[in-house]
């Protein structure tokens, strides 16, 4: 079973040279830690920076330089700042090659719910609806089940949607799964996790090929 850092590590393997990548809050943020040195990848944060670097060295924080999670950050050489309209022009206009974000639920048709639980305080969708409606390549990073042990990979989302038919791949603590033709297709198992465990934890239609390799991390 993968840790959150392992999930990030596995997703980092999806990133290709020359890609602009938007990482959501939580596990997705960790992906940046596992990009190989020398790989030409730039991170976009929707509040207005391309070329986001690591957290600042203590004492050099700048209140004017934050990421979408409102954390203090740094800028890499070649970075650029821009306004929010331009930022979402990049996202909506499909200039960002990969979006990684968390989810509460994902459906077998690629729907995603990650912003609202009826009856609970609703904080808002932030940029998530723009991101999922536009990105060509969306990977969801999440635990396979919720705190009650219920599957988060469903035939249909029960929570209010963030986007429709947009998720292409899900990486969980148990598996890598692709979404197509109305089903989850098992691609890889987490080390030590059996196909049966994955089947049990997946409520939506699951297609299991003959060979399901274990992830190489």
């Amino acid at each position: 079973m993968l840790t959150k850092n392992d999930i990030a590590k596995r997703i980092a393997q999806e990133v290709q040279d020359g890609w602009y990548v938007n990482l959501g809050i939580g596990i997705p943020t960790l992906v940046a830690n596992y990009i190989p040195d020398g790989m030409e990848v730039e991170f976009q944060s929707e509040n207005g920076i391309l070329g986001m670097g690591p957290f600042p060295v203590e004492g050099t924080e700048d209140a004017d330089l934050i990421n979408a999670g409102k954390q203090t950050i740094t800028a890499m050489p070649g970075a650029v700042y821009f306004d929010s309209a331009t930022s979402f022009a990049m996202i909506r206009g499909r200039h960002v090659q990969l979006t990684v974000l968390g989810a509460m639920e994902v459906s077998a048709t690629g729907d995603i719910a990650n912003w609202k639980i009826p009856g609970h305080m609703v904080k808002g969708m932030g940029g998530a609806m723009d991101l999922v409606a536009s990105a060509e390549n969306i990977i969801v990073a999440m635990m396979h089940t919720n705190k009650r042990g219920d599957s988060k990979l469903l035939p249909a989302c029960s929570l209010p949607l963030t986007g429709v038919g947009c998720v292409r791949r899900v990486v969980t603590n148990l598996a890598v799964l692709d979404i197509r033709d109305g089903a989850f297709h098992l691609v890889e198992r987490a080390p030590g996790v059996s196909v049966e465990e994955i089947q049990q934890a997946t409520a939506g239609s699951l297609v299991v090929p003959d060979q399901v390799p274990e992830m190489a991390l």
Partner: protein
Amino acid sequence: MAITKTVRDAQQACEGVQDGMTLMLGGFGLCGIPEHSIAELQRLGVKDLVCISNNAGVDDFGLGRLLQGRQIRKMISSYVGENDEFERQMLSGELEVDLIPQGSLAERCRAGGAGIPAFFTPAGYGTEVAEGKEVREFDGKPHILETALTADFAFVKAWKGDAAGNLVYKATARNFNPMMAMAGRITVAEVEHLVPVGELDPNEIHTPGIFVQRIFEGANFEKRIEQRTVRPAQS
């Protein structure tokens, strides 16, 4: 000859703000917010405001200060966490909240300033955001029609500015400020450094002065950090 927009301070800049008005306020979280104008709005005690702002501040800073005095009737935002008083007022029904996708918020403000009354975007299609909105397919992909936002007053914060209202922002403190500056009937800019006209390189100005009606230099910006994340100094 350049048109002078300078006012003395936040008090003069906020003249004319009245109960029930719609205001835009720049900033993302607490980054790049017009903190002096917000303090003055609190002092003025104007009520029943509709505030368009990506976030709602924290309990004792940013728009949280106006929430304390129940000056806000409605918030139009994309994300409103980090604020207990906000949550209390929202859950009790005292505060109306209109949540819209962040990119649509930014684009709707720009549209308001640019004389584009409506545009199509894919964001929110198939979600409750699309309820009651026109849906149309372009290239086989469904989009929803979103309308422009404007405001009686827009309050923005810049790093440098001149008397002609030209503004330069710093780093990610730019965020929503440029579009809101465009969309205000009266746009008030507070800046860290008010420089002589002609000192800003005309190539490097982010907000042309035509969008700004009043400008003042604020003293002692607090510029509070919401999430201080650091790594240790390497030895």
